[in-house]
C-alpha cells in the first residue's frame, strides 16, 4: 500500500517490455537462461524406483515420528510390566491365575508373548493402530501438507496406497514390538520351556515357538481391517483426532456388539469377532478353516473400506 502511494504516476513499469519479449520465443525458454542448474533428467522423465522412494519416505515419516515411537514404546512396555508383576507375585496365592494366558507365563516365558498380546488386544493395540491409521490422510490435511504432496505431484491413488502400506507397517511394528519384548522379557524372567497347549498336550519348544510366531502373524493380520477402517475415516475429515476417535470407537462398538448374545447372527461379520481366534494355533490340531475365516473377514473389511477410502479420497476436494 505504502509503496503504491509513493509510486509516482507513470513509473508503474520497472520492466514493461519483459513480458512481451519473452512471450514470443516459444513455450520453453532456453535452459541456459535458467537461474538454476540444468537438472539431470528432464522434468517429464520418471526416475526409476519412484514408488520405492515414496514408500521409504512415508515409512521414515511414520516410524520416525516421535509420537509414534512413544506409542510403540508404550506397547512394548506392556510385556515388561506384565513380566515384572507376575515375577514379583509368582509365589503368592494368585500365582498361576489370570485371564487368558496370563496364568501360564510363570511356567513358561514363551507365553508372555501371547499373554501380552492378549492384554493389549481389546484396547491398547486398536488405539495405537487407530492413531496411526486415522492420522494417515487427515494428519497431512490438517497440517496442509496434503496439498503440497498432491501438487508435487503424487497421484492420489498412489498416495493412498503408500499411506495404507505405512499404516500397515506401523500396525505390524506394534504387534512385533509386543512380541519381541515379550519374548526377551519372558525368557529373562521365566525361561523358555516346552509348550503346553490349550488341549493339555505338550509340544517341543521349537514347535511351540513356531505356533506362537503364528499367533503373532495372525494377530498382526487381524489388525489390517482396522487399518482400512482408520484410513477411510482419515479421508473423511481434516481433523486427525476425529478420525482416530472414530476408528477406536468402531473397534470398541464391534467388541460390544460381539458381547451381545442377541446379535448372534451378525457376530461372525464383526471386525473384532475373530481376533481371539489366534488361540486356535495353541490347540492340538489347529482348525485352519477357523483361522482362514478370521482372515477372510478381515479381507472383507479391507476390501470394502479401502475402496470406500479410495472413492472418497480420489474425488474429494482438498481445501485444507
Amino acid at each position, binding site marked *: 500500500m505504502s509503496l*503504491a502511494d509513493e509510486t509516482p504516476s507513470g513509473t508503474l513499469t520497472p*520492466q514493461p517490455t519483459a513480458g512481451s519479449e519473452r512471450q514470443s520465443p516459444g513455450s520453453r525458454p532456453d535452459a541456459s537462461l535458467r537461474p538454476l542448474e540444468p537438472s539431470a533428467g528432464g522434468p517429464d522423465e520418471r526416475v526409476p524406483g519412484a514408488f520405492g522412494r515414496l514408500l521409504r519416505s512415508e515409512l521414515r515419516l511414520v516410524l520416525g515420528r516421535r509420537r509414534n515411537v512413544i506409542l510403540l514404546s508404550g506397547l512394548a512396555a506392556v510385556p515388561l510390566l506384565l513380566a515384572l508383576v507376575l515375577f514379583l507375585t509368582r509365589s503368592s496365592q494368585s500365582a498361576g491365575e489370570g485371564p487368558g494366558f496370563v496364568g501360564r507365563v510363570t511356567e513358561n516365558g514363551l507365553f508372555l508373548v501371547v499373554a501380552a498380546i492378549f492384554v493389549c488386544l481389546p484396547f491398547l493395540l486398536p488405539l495405537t493402530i487407530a492413531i496411526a491409521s486415522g492420522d494417515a490422510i487427515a494428519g497431512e490435511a490438517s497440517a496442509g501438507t496434503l496439498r503440497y504432496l498432491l501438487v508435487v505431484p503424487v497421484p492420489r491413488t498412489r498416495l493412498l496406497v503408500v499411506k495404507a502400506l505405512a499404516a500397515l507397517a506401523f500396525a505390524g511394528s506394534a504387534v512385533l514390538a509386543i512380541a519381541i519384548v515379550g519374548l526377551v522379557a519372558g525368557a529373562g524372567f521365566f525361561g523358555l520351556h516346552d509348550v503346553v497347549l490349550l488341549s493339555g498336550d505338550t509340544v517341543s519348544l521349537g514347535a511351540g515357538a513356531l505356533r506362537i510366531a503364528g499367533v503373532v502373524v495372525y494377530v498382526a493380520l487381524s489388525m489390517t481391517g482396522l487399518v482400512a477402517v482408520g484410513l477411510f475415516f482419515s479421508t473423511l475429515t481434516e481433523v486427525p483426532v476425529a478420525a482416530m476417535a472414530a476408528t477406536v470407537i468402531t473397534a470398541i462398538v464391534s467388541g460390544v456388539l460381539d458381547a451381545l448374545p442377541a446379535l448372534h447372527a451378525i457376530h461372525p461379520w464383526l471386525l473384532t469377532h475373530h481376533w481371539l481366534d489366534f488361540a486356535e494355533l495353541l490347540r492340538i490340531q489347529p482348525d485352519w478353516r477357523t483361522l482362514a475365516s478370521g482372515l477372510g473377514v478381515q479381507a472383507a473389511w479391507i476390501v470394502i473400506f479401502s475402496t470406500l477410502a479410495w472413492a472418497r479420497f480420489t474425488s474429494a476436494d482438498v481445501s485444507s
Partner: protein
Amino acid sequence: MTPAATAVGDEAEAGSEDTGPLAVRSDGLTKRFRSGQVAVDGLGLRVPRGAVYGFIGPNGSGKTTTIRMLLGLVQPTGGRSWLLDESMPRASSRVLTRVGALVEGPAFHPYLSGRANLARLDAVDATADPRTRTRRSGEALERVGLSAAADKKYRQYSLGMKQRLGLAAALLRPRDLLVLDEPTNGLDPQGTREVRNLVRELAAGGTTVLVSSHLLAEIEQVCSHVGIMSRGRLVLQGDRSVLAARGDARVAVVTTPSCVATAAEVLRGLGLGSPDVEGVRLVAPLGEVPPERVSAALVRGGVDLVGFEVRRSNLEQVFVELTGEGFDVAR
C-alpha cells in the same frame, strides 16, 4: 473508459487479446460449493507464457479457490482449465512436475527441519533425481536465504521463514510455471522486496509466474499482466497497457478567483469537457490531450497559474473503481 476491458471473462474478448502460447488458461471455470455458494464464477484466465501475472482481488474473492482448481486440488463444478497447454486435472501427474506452487501459505511437517521437509517433498516426486537432491535443496534454501536455518525444526521458524521455505519448495526444481499464492504474506518489507526480486529474476529466466495478492503494491511493481477478481468474477484482465488505457488521467488547475471562468473556458476549448470547479480549483478529465498543451493554452489565455497537476490513477484506484470495495474487505 474501454468497456471491452471491463468485460474480461467473455471468451471472445479474452481470446482476441492474447494470441501467443498460454501458460495458464481457463474457460468458464466455476466452483459452486455444496452450500450453494458460488466461489468462482465462469473464469476465463489467460496467462501468457513468460508473463508475470498479477492475480489480484480482495480476500475471499475466489483467488485461492481458482488456484486450487488450476492445480487439481479442487474439482471445478463447471468449465475447464489448462496448465502449459495440458488439460487439468487429467494431465496433472505429467504437467505439475513443471509447476512450482505455493498455495495458501506454506505447510510443512513441524517436527522436521526445513531441509528434511524439502527432502521429503523431493523424495515423493517421481521425476526428481535422488542423486541431486541434496544439492538442489541446498541451492533452493540458499536462494530464499534460509541456509542458516535449514536444520532448525520447522515449528521453530518465524512466519517469514516458513514463507521462504514454501518458496524454496517451489524452487526445488526448474519450473516452467510458478503459482505463488500470497507469497509475501508474513514477510517484512525487506522480505517482500526480496520476493519481488526473486520473481523478477525467475521471470528473466523465462519462467511464467502467476502471483496472487490482496496487497496490490507488492504486485504492481513486478507484474507484466494483471487479472482482477471480485466476488468470484474476473473483472479485468490484460497486460499493463489495459491499465494504462483505463488510466483515467485528470488535470487539476489552481488559479486566482478572477481567472476561474477564463480557465474553464480554455479547458473546454481544448475539448476536455466541463471541469469541476471548487473555488479556485478546476479538475477536468485529460483524455488524449497532452498535459503540456493544456498548460501552454492556459498561459496563453492569460490565466494566472497558481498550480498545475496531472493525476493519473494507479492500479489501486482502478481496483477500487472496479470492485467497489477496499482491499481488506472479505465477503
